[in-house]
């Protein structure tokens, strides 16, 4: 019965599809996933399109899990994942294009200069609720946490050996950008985001400040920052010809400038 229904619907839709190109067309790529990778992928895509006229690449965000999900379901040709793949995801092939880290951010006006791991854990568990307790000004702490399905959250939890259910959050956000926006709009807020994104925003003049983590100041440049991760493009099975070309381009030295502009660390040649 379902097959027949599907046929009926498809016939109805033929009117529209008749003058449209389909997703399977070989001049289009759909890339979805991590909001950390997205700005970089967008820049690379623009360059790629310039070099290859007639090619169209659509980039959409939604989180690493969406990247994995869409690549699996065939909704996207390439998924973006801002972490290493898990064993359960071995059906996908990862292609690392850059390295990134996760950093704690506070509002620019916050006079706290550094936080220990124990302090961060206490803040996120709701044991410390005012900056006063850490020697700062008398201001309630607003804990900004990421929504589930975001690899930033998973890495953060793993690094601090926390469970999401232990965290007493005040705001739950999705994209990195949303986290930065929330922190920049709330003087007492603390959050964690991609360092690349945070550095980029800081340079743009957004009122946020990256905190050093365990005494290491925030930068993944030399690869020693404690909370670092690979930024991956993933495909299901073997990538199509165009996807393969794009991935090859994204891993090439041609895009290192773009990677650095986004404050990520290019792969060593």
């Amino acid at each position, binding site marked *: 019965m379902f097959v027949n229904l599907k046929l009926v619907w498809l016939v109805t839709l033929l009117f*529209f*599809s008749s*003058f449209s190109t389909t997703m399977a067309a070989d001049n289009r790529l759909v890339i979805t996933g991590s*909001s950390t990778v997205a700005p970089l992928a967008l820049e690379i895509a623009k360059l790629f399109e310039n070099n290859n006229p007639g090619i169209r690449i*659509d980039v*959409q965000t939604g989180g690493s899990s969406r990247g994995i999900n869409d690549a699996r379901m065939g*909704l996207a040709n390439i998924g973006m994942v801002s972490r290493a793949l898990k064993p359960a995801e071995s059906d996908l092939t990862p292609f690392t294009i850059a390295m990134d880290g996760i950093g704690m951010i506070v509002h620019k006006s916050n006079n706290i200069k550094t936080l220990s791991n124990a302090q961060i854990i206490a803040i996120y568990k709701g044991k410390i609720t005012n900056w006063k307790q850490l020697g700062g000004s008398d201001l309630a702490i607003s804990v900004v946490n990421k929504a589930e399905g975001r690899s930033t959250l998973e890495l953060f939890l793993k690094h601090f050996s926390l469970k999401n259910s232990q965290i007493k959050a005040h705001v739950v956000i999705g*994209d990195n*950008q949303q986290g930065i*926006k929330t922190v920049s709009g709330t003087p007492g807020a603390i959050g964690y985001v991609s360092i690349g994104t945070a550095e980029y925003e800081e340079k743009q003049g957004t009122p946020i400040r990256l905190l050093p983590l365990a005494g290491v100041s925030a930068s993944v440049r030399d690869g020693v920052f404690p909370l670092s991760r690979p930024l991956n493009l993933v495909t299901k099975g073997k990538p199509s010809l165009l996807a393969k070309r794009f991935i090859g381009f994204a891993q090439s030295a041609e895009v290192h400038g773009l990677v650095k502009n986004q404050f990520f660390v290019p792969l060593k040649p």
Partner: protein
Amino acid sequence: MADQIFKAVILACTAFIGLVFLWILGEVVVKGISHLSFSFLFDAPVNSGRAGGIAPILVSTLMIIIVAVSVSVPLGLGVAVWLSEFTKQGQKFATSTRLTLDVLAGIPSIVYGLFGNAFFCIYLGLGFSILSGGLTLACMILPIFIRTCEMGLRTVNDSWRKGALALGMTRTAAIWHILLPSATPAIIAGLVLGIGRATAETAALIFTSGYVDRMPESFMDSGRALAVHIYDLSMNVTGGDHAAYATALTLIILIVFFNIMAQFMMDQWLGRKVLSS
């Protein structure tokens, strides 16, 4: 005395509401106008929408509406005619169809988003596309449109039906030449209601038509609607508030424009054919 106090209290409440609403509208207009310009409407967004304009987003929105309307209007008109002209009171099939439509009208838009994602995007393989989004919205506005049209047809003077049939005309002719033209104001009202819903919709579109803010080249491209753009600018883009307000103002102007157009069309219609009950 109690009368005076009562009057004072409810007048104060009313004034308060008016002021709050003027505040909202004022905020949108003032913050929006400062960012709104000719180039804002005709440029592509730059830097996630912080700069540039909304041209591709306007185009996507219109394309989504076109899909939604061109699917739901013929279908809805047919169903409305059937319900009001070809069914008798208490007929099981008609009653259950009506009940079904009532239930459909009540489903929250986010649930339509879920359905659209599962059905159009994945099951039919349309992916994140304007087509998926438009079809999802078509499902959403269909019951409202049918309801308004059916009501319009029901209020058509019954004596015209009898008159037409007494002249030996077929029902088909009566519907086509007399009933549908007479119900045109209601049909336009239903259409405007539907378009208004479609234009304002966000939740059903995020997972169906997607996020891409580039100029769509076909109905199979992903396209970002105005409402989705507002959401994205306000939630995910630092320093995007002004662009968000400008987009919101554009969206409101668009909706008002549709309403005025509809009013104009109705006036034209009523001016041409004196309809009275």
